[in-house]
C-alpha cells in the first residue's frame, strides 16, 4: 500500500521532529546541560551540591587538575576544553555562590569561541532561508540539538550520578593518547624545585596594554568581579606548560600582561607559566599527563595553602 508507506515515512520524520521539539520545551535546562559542555559542568556542580573550591579554565586546567589532589577540601573542576572570554564570563556569572575559585589566567584565543559553538549555526548563515532562520530563533530543539549526539548522551548518566563526581572525569580528550604513552616522567627527572609559582618584579605603573591585552583585561575584570560579587575568594592561576610553549608564553610582554591583570583586579596570582618543569610531564607540551596532573595539583594545593 503506497499511501500507507508514504504516510508512515512522513509520520516518522515529522513525528520524531515534533516529539523532540516537545521534549526540548518540557526539559530545556536538562537538555541544554547535555548539549553544551560548559552548561553541563555547571549543571553537574549544581547537582553535586556545595564544595570548598571550584577550578575554572581551559583544557590546560581541565586536563591538569584533579580537585581531590589539591587537599583543600571538596573540590570541583568546572574547567572545559574552551579558552574564550565569553565562556569564562558565562561560567563566572552562572557559577553561583562559592567559597574559593581558581581561575586560570592564560591568554584567551583571539577569536573567542562563543558559548553555543557546538549548537546551531550563527544567524548570519541563514541568508536566503527565512523559514530556516525563523526555526533557528524559535525552535527549542535546534538550540540543544547536540544533546542528541551519541558522544554527549553519557552526560545524562553524569548528571544522575553527580554527587560522586568532581568534574575532572569529563572531556579529557587526551586520555587515549595517555594510554599509549609510557608513564611520565621516567625515573631520573628531578625538577621538584621548579614546581612553584614564580614571582616577577612588577613596575609600579603598569605599562599600557595593546588592544588585545586590553580586551583580555576587560574580560577578566568582568569575570572576576562577577565571582567576587557572589562571595567567592578568587585566586588566579597560570598553569605550567612545556618548554616549546613556555618560550611563547613566558616572555616579558606576556608576563607583564598576566601580572597587570592580577594587579588591576587585586587578585592573588599563582603563576606556574614560567616554571621550568620537565617536558616529560606533558602529553603534548601543553597538557599535563596523569603523573603531571598529580604533580601540578599537589603543587597548586601547597601554594594555595601558603596564601595569606
Amino acid at each position, binding site marked *: 500500500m503506497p499511501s500507507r508507506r*508514504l504516510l508512515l515515512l512522513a509520520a*516518522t520524520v515529522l513525528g520524531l521532529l515534533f516529539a523532540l521539539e516537545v521534549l526540548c520545551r518540557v526539559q530545556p535546562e536538562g537538555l541544554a546541560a547535555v548539549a553544551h559542555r560548559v552548561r553541563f559542568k555547571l549543571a553537574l556542580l549544581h547537582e553535586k551540591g556545595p564544595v570548598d573550591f571550584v577550578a575554572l579554565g581551559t583544557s590546560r586546567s581541565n586536563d591538569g587538575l584533579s580537585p581531590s589532589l589539591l587537599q583543600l577540601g571538596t573540590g570541583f573542576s568546572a574547567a572545559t576544553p574552551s579558552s574564550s572570554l565569553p565562556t569564562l564570563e558565562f561560567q563566572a556569572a552562572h557559577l553561583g555562590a562559592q567559597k574559593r575559585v581558581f581561575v586560570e589566567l592564560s591568554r584567551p584565543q583571539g577569536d573567542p569561541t562563543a558559548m553555543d559553538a557546538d549548537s546551531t549555526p550563527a544567524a548570519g548563515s541563514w541568508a*536566503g532561508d527565512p523559514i530556516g532562520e525563523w*526555526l533557528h530563533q524559535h525552535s527549542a530543539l535546534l538550540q540543544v*540539538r547536540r544533546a542528541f549526539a551519541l558522544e554527549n548522551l553519557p552526560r545524562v548518566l553524569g548528571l544522575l550520578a553527580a554527587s560522586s563526581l568532581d568534574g575532572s572525569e569529563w572531556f579529557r580528550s587526551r586520555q587515549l593518547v595517555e594510554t599509549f604513552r609510557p608513564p611520565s616522567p621516567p625515573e631520573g627527572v628531578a625538577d621538584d624545585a621548579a614546581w612553584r609559582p614564580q614571582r616577577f618584579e612588577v613596575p609600579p605603573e603598569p605599562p599600557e596594554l595593546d588592544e588585545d591585552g586590553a580586551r583580555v583585561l576587560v574580560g577578566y575584570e568582568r569575570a572576576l568581579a562577577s565571582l567576587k560579587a557572589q562571595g567567592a575568594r578568587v585566586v588566579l592561576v597560570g598553569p605550567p606548560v612545556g618548554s616549546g610553549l613556555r618560550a611563547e608564553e613566558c616572555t616579558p610582554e606576556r608576563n607583564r600582561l598576566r601580572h597587570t591583570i592580577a594587579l588591576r583586579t587585586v587578585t592573588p596570582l599563582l603563576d606556574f607559566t614560567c616554571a621550568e618543569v620537565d617536558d616529560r610531564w606533558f602529553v*603534548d607540551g601543553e597538557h599535563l599527563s596523569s603523573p603531571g596532573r598529580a604533580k601540578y595539583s599537589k603543587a597548586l594545593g601547597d601554594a594555595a595553602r601558603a596564601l595569606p
Partner: protein
Amino acid sequence: MLFHSATFLVSVTVLVALYWLAPWHRVRLQLLFLSSLVFYGWRHWPSVFLLLGSIAVNYTLGRLLESRRSKALLAFGVTINLSFLAYFKYGRFAVDQLISLGALVGVELEVPKPDAWMPLGISFFTFQVIAYLVDVYRKEIPAERSLLVFAVFKSFFAQLVAGPIVRGKEFLPQLHRAVPFELARIHRGAWLVLCGLFLKVGVADVLGDYVDYAWKFPETLGINNAWLTIYAYAAQLLADFWGYSTMAVGLALCFGLTLPVNFENPYGASSLRDFWTRWHITLSVWLRDYLYISLGGNRVSRGRAAFNRLVTMALGGLWHGAGWNYVIWGVLHAAWMELELVTQTFRARWPKWLGVVITFHVVVFLWIPFRAPSLAALGTMLSRLVSAPWDINTPTQTAVMTLGFLVLQKPLFSLVRAERADTLKPLAEVALAAAMVWLLLAYGSARQDFIYYVF
C-alpha cells in the same frame, strides 16, 4: 535556493501539492516553470534574465536548425552558448593569464576584468542546451514546438544548477505526457530526498568543516591529518554531489518526472575508465557523445585517439572550474587511463579487489589538485603527506565518518535507490528514516553550498 534549506523543503512540499491539484497538464508545467524561475533568481534575481534569454534564443535556434539543417547555424548556436559560459566563468581567469603572460615578457597589461558574478549552474545548462541543439541537428530528436515545454526542459529547478545533465530525448517526451498521480512515485521521491539530505548535511558538510579548515592551513597539518584530509575530501565530494543528485532525482519523481542517475558506486570502480562510467555519469556521457566522438573518438590512429582522450579529459577538467588545477586534474586522469590501456593485458590477471584499491587511491590522489585552492597549497599538502610530524590530535568523528562512509559504499548505494523504497520492509524504512533524522539533528553541520554549484 538551496535544496537543504528549510524554506526550499517547505516550498517544494506546497508546490508538489499544488502541482497535483492542478487539473490541467499545462497549468502544471506553468507552475514548474514559474517556481523554477523563483528558485533560480532567489539569490541573484538578474540571473533570471540570462535564463530567459537563453530559453528564447535556444528555442528559436532549435526550430531554425530543424527547418534548415545548417552546420554554420549549429556552430553559431554552440558558439553563442559557449561564449556566455566563457565570459561568465572563464573571463577573469583568461584575463589573469593574459596579464601574467604580459608580465612574463615585461609588458604591463591593463585589461578590464569581466564582471565577477557567475550565474549558478551555467556549466550545466550550457551543456544541456548544446546537447539539445546537436541532437536536433543530428535529427535524433525533433525541435521542441511548445515554448512552455522547452522552457521547463531548460529551467526545471531540480536539475538546473547542478545536474544531472538531462538530454532532450529522455526528458522532453516526459514533459509532454500527463502522468497520473501516483503515491508510490511520491513515496520513492520522498525516500530519495531524505537520503540525499542526509548525505549532504549529515555527511558532506560535517566532513567539509574539517576539510576546509585543513586546506586553509595545510602547513599546520601533521602527517596523520594530511592523510585524513585527502580521504575525508574524497568522501565529502562524493557525499555532496551524490546527495545533491539523489535529491534532484527524488524531487523530480515527486512531480512524476524521471531524471537519470548520476552515480553508481564510483569508488568501487576497478579502473579509471570504469570510474568514469560511475561518477557524474551524465557529464561523462555528454563528453563522450558531444566532444570525444566529435573529435574522432577511437576510430582514428592510436596516437590521435590518445590525443582525443587527452583533450576530452583536459576540457572536462576545465569544465569544473577556471583554474590550472582542474586542467592538471583532467590531464592526469587521461594519463592514467592511457597507462591502464597499455597495461591492460597485465592487469587482466589481477584480482578485481586489487584494481578497486588501486583505482580508489589514484582517484583520491587526483582529487588533491582538484581541491587545492592554489598551486602553493597543493605543494604544501603533498609535502605534508610525506614528511610532517604526527599530530597528537586526530578528530575521531571525522576519521570514523570518513572510514565508515568509504567502507560502506556498496550497501549505501544499494539503499539509496528509488526502487528500494518499495522493497524495504516498512519497519526497516521507519528505523532508517528515524536514524537519518536523528543523525541530521545531532551532527548536521552548518549549511554550505553544494560543491558542484560552483562548477
